[in-house]
């Protein structure tokens, strides 16, 4: 196995472990590791993380759906404005320096860590 493939496998496993532990957290693991281990740019890391999250989320939502835990109307109600936001967010990301995106991500990580501990 090439070291690059090994790193991708490690990222996938780590993202899965933290998702299994805390129910969320795929993106906060995938984005930094793509940058730190694979030399991804911030934009590429965010884009690739989103594609992975579609698959991870679909599996989770499917299993929850089998247990009847998913409320599709509520999901629609919150997803519609969120899609508008995501289009705005990705457009904004193309217009600001990648370095600023990295700093914003670091702020998100600190906030997430604080929420976990306190």
């Amino acid at each position, binding site marked *: 196995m090439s070291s690059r493939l090994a790193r*991708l496998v490690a*990222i*996938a*496993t*780590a993202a*899965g*472990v933290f998702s*299994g*532990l*805390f*129910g*969320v*957290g795929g993106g906060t693991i*995938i*984005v*930094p590791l793509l*940058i730190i*281990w*694979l*030399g991804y740019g911030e934009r*590429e890391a*965010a*884009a690739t*993380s*989103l*594609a*992975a*999250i*579609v698959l*991870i989320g679909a599996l989770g*939502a499917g299993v*929850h759906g089998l247990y009847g*835990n*998913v*409320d599709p109307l509520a*999901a629609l*109600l*919150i997803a519609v*404005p*969120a*899609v*508008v*936001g*995501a*289009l*705005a*967010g*990705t457009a*904004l990301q*193309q217009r600001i320096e990648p370095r600023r*995106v*990295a700093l*914003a*991500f670091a702020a998100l*990580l*600190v906030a*997430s*860590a604080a*929420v976990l*501990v306190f």
Partner: protein
Amino acid sequence: MDPVELAAILAVGFVAGVTSGLLGVGGGVIFVPGLVILLGEGQLEAEATSLLAVVVVAGAGAWRQQHYGNLRLRDGVLIGVLSPVGVVAGVVIANEVPERGLEIGFAVVQLYFAWRLVRGLPEAPA
């Protein structure tokens, strides 16, 4: 639902979407409390419902990023397909290790990542 609640849920969704598109996360961290507080869902139902919203939002973001030329689809699909192995390991660990230790451990990992991102990055080998 009264108009104030509706406006609040739309605003929470929009903020989660911007965060998702800008930073490449799913937005569940914002969706879950939004669903619990504003729509009165239980924690489990909120997490499940959030996952469905995450799929839609991340899909829209990934599609736009493909258009911008930033998406490396093969790597993303590989991570997505392989991560369930980790999920199983995570559930096993969650049942073996005290929750408080896990929370602190994950927080430390996140702070380390934050430090690496702020410090700037050496040219990593491809």
